[in-house]
């Protein structure tokens, strides 16, 4: 017989629970059958999470002197905090309240009401047994470091960094490439307004580069992350630029004089050249070039040094080595972006075999006034202006063989391409689409505009792109074969140029990124948000946020919105000055510990240290996150987690199984 006075509250959750669980019966049963376990009051209510429902609990705490509370409702993910707060307001320590789920784990999965009701009783009984073991706890408070790390210098990262920096807090930005700017810097025009991408992006880049609150590392990567929210330690690897940034003025003479020309696979998407010493584009931020050691003649053969000879300030430094910096940061925003689908994976589209098949990124460079052709739309021979162009949507997206998802931007991007081809060449344009998706502000209007410009829209998936002429008039052309599903006929369209709107894919190294920062990613590799609707920029790891295409394909406005949203979350946390942490911690029973040290290496937060003179391990409660890994790993059973002690878990199991076994029949009627 327990000395505690326990209140049990069963939620209907509208019909979510009451539909398949007889809540009145569960409540009646708990009041009678669990009386000798200390249950003094048992009620059911339509919505326990409503303020009336919460007041019900508070009233009972005051009038009946409850010492423990069990709420049977939804998953603790949703409302544990709600009911803990309600108890706290009612004068009970919040950790003496147990929320057990009879919705996700019961009513939603059992169509049979009798079974659902019996199982709900078992779950309630388990909750009652566990709550007896609960102890009053006080939440821990730790100070938060106001420095924020932003990983990725594309438009999402830039937006996030500026928001935080403008609020007056320090930001460290890390970018892998020599310059920030991301994919947006590669574009000429942006849909649907067709404003110049560089004109709206470069002022932001300059602002980041010169902001007193932003410390920018370009040509750098994060190599290590440890700690926890408010108190992370990060290691940044600054790759050797071979250029002394204290002396370099960014005059560009080194690039001019460098005799080694190489294809630029990153910024020019393989369609243009750069030098071995380079900045990716003239407006690069920072302005300092880097030497690509894999291609530099000096690093390959030991001679040349042309850049060094001509540099007016003596900034070239061939002896530079990679440097590692360690910083303490409070929170982290990941805006690592996307990679383009490799169109060679669809061989029947001929990319890589047929010269005049281009990818979307190649075409972006082709139309860019600062690109390899100065913005002239020409075929791969560099001179011929195409008279007809086919644009293929959904290449590698919405395709079970490659990526099942929609890449979100391709329809609008393809419409933009159609417009630019019309404008620059006057060519006939054929857009092969599956469905037209133009759902945002001004997008449908842009579609109308492109329709009126005379673009041919053919609804159907392209079967193949070939140079094998079948009929007269097809010689020397690329023939796009597709079924026009609106008229139910096969079509062969001979064109001069084909543009493949290739899918947006997660960064190729998404697995390493997820592991490094301790967050999870979807099957495809997109980083996973805490909640797809209500918490799209936080992750399941406290203090780590995601923004932009790292989370999933999206266009520039959505990336900017996410960058700002992540920044708002970060600023909100900083302004709290300290972070309240769950007091769930592991502790080691010194009597039982054998000193085997198995737990030492298991701890992901390095919270366990071995005390040499006493030959036992000890948990540092400031570092422990209560994950429970050590508790499960300890062969002597010497480690226990507050709230989740072995006794409490076994008692809950007893409640679930033993107390009810006689009444529990889970075979459907």
């Amino acid at each position, binding site marked *: 017989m327990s000395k505690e006075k326990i209140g049990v509250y069963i939620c209907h959750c509208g019909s979510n629970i009451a539909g398949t669980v007889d809540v009145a019966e569960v409540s009646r049963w708990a009041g009678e059958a669990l009386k000798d376990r200390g249950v003094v009051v048992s009620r059911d209510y339509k919505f326990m999470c409503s303020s009336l429902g919460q007041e019900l609990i508070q009233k009972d705490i005051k009038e009946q002197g409850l010492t423990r509370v069990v709420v049977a409702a939804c998953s603790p993910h949703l409302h544990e905090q709600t009911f803990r707060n309600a108890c706290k307001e009612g004068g009970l320590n919040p950790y003496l309240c147990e929320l057990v789920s009879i919705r996700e784990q019961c009513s939603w999965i059992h169509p049979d009401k009798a079974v659902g009701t019996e199982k709900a009783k078992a779950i309630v009984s388990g909750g009652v047994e566990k709550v007896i073991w609960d102890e009053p706890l006080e939440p821990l408070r730790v100070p938060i470091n106001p420095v924020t790390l932003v990983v990725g210098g594309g438009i999402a990262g830039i937006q996030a960094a500026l928001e935080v920096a403008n609020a007056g807090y320090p930001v460290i930005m890390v970018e892998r490439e020599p310059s920030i700017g991301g994919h947006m810097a590669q574009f000429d025009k942006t849909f649907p307004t067709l404003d110049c991408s560089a004109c709206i992006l470069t002022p932001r880049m300059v602002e980041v580069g010169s902001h007193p609150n932003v410390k920018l590392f370009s040509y750098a990567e994060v190599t290590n992350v440890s700690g926890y929210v408010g108190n992370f330690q990060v290691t940044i690897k600054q790759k050797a630029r071979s250029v002394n940034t204290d002396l370099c003025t960014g005059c560009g003479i080194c690039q001019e004089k460098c005799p080694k020309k190489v294809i630029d696979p990153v910024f020019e998407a393989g369609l243009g050249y750069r030098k071995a010493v380079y900045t990716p584009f003239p407006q690069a931020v920072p302005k300092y070039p880097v030497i690509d050691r894999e291609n530099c003649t000096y690093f390959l053969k030991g001679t040349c040094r042309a850049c060094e000879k001509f540099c007016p300030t003596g900034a070239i430094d061939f002896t530079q080595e990679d440097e590692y910096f360690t910083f303490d940061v409070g929170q982290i925003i990941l805006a690592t972006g996307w990679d383009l689908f490799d169109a060679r994976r669809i*061989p029947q589209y001929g990319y890589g*075999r047929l010269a005049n098949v281009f990818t979307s990124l190649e075409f972006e460079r082709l139309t860019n006034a600062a690109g390899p052709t100065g913005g002239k739309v020409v075929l791969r021979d560099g001179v011929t202006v195409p008279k007809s162009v086919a644009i293929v949507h959904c290449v590698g997206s919405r395709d079970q063989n490659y990526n099942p998802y929609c890449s979100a931007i391709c329809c609008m991007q393809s419409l933009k391409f159609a417009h630019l081809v019309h404008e620059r060449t006057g060519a006939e344009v054929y857009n092969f689409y599956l469905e037209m998706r133009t759902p945002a502000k001004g997008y449908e209007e842009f579609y109308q505009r492109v329709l009126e410009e005379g673009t041919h829209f053919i609804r159907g998936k392209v079967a*193949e792109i070939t140079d*094998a*002429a079948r009929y007269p008039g097809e010689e020397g052309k690329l023939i796009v074969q597709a079924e026009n599903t609106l008229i139910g006929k096969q079509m062969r369209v001979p064109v001069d140029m084909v543009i493949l709107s290739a899918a947006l894919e997660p960064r190729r190294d998404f697995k390493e990124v997820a592991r490094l920062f301790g967050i999870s990613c979807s099957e495809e590799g997109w980083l996973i948000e805490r909640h797809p609707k209500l918490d799209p920029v936080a992750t399941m790891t406290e203090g780590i946020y995601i923004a932009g295409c790292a989370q999933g394909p999206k266009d520039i406005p959505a990336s900017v919105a996410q960058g700002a949203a992540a920044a708002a979350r970060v600023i909100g946390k900083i302004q709290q000055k300290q972070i309240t942490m769950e007091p769930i911690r592991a502790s080691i029973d010194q009597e039982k510990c054998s000193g085997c040290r198995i737990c030492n290496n298991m701890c992901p937060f390095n919270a366990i240290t071995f005390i040499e003179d006493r030959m036992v391990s000890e948990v540092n409660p400031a570092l422990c996150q209560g994950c429970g890994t050590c508790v499960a790993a300890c062969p002597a059973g010497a480690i226990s987690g507050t709230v989740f002690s072995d006794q409490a878990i076994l008692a809950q199991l007893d409640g679930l199984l033993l107390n009810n076994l006689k009444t529990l029949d889970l075979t459907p009627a």
Partner: protein
Amino acid sequence: MKYSYFPGCSLERNASAYHVSAMAIAEPLGMEFVEVEDWNCCGATEYVSLNLIASYALIARNLAQAAKETSTKQLVAPCSACYLNLKKCNAYMEESPSLEEKINLALAAGGLSYKGGTLKVRHLLDVIVNDVGYEAIAAKVTKPLKGLRVAPYYGCMIVRPKLGKNGTFDNPEYPTTLDKLLKVLGATVIDFPLKAHCCGGHMTQISESTGFELIRRLIKGATDYKADLIVTLCPMCQLNLDAFQGAMNAHFNTTYHMPVLYFTQMIGLAFGMDAASLGIGTELVDARPALEKIGVEVPEAEIVVKKPPKEALPMPSMPEEK
């Protein structure tokens, strides 16, 4: 390596050159073929659409017969239609217990049984490039096919559809194994965009003009790419492109001349084997002008007219054609 071998009906008749050349290169490639005992028709391309269970039972009988051979679990079919049928039946029986049960009811009438997935069904090209390997083949080449422009032609059935857990041994839309093999043999291989397009199958028997159009595209494509000959791996493709080339030319009033040989014949030639021993000379579109480029002499095919025996009775006279 030892394999069960399912020749199928065409390799006994119209595609005998395929069979002869496959057997000729087996020894130098270190392959041993054991012909499936008492095999029957695979059902070709039509039967499956007429009566599913009966057609699978017909195919499964071959699998059951082949499974009797205990020394190998690999079943090789050189004909693409046979290969696809055997592979489909094998995969579907493994996936669907109910189909397997029905088929086994039929097989039981003949005292046979088969469990889906027991055998691994493979095409001859697959085992040559993947089991023997390009390097081992390259080591045997004594007379490289230098200067010969070839169009590799796979047809539709060898790589499509993707079946079972392991899919196909080559890309279903744009296969490349035969390209690589022919390069190893020393030939100049054109990047043939029509390599996996339809040869027409049995369309010549159903709708002549449709069949001829499908054949024309392929022959025209190979001619446009200045190929000396088409190399194929399917008796059906060879039959359509070779035997119907004349009729197609007559239909469209064209003068294409594009010989069509089997890849096994090309391997034999590169290994320095005698053309006649590889069945070269039995094709209808003369391959000699093409093969002269690589110094292969093909003896004039002797037309043997069998004289009727003395005791023979006279043939009835036929009405004269208009």
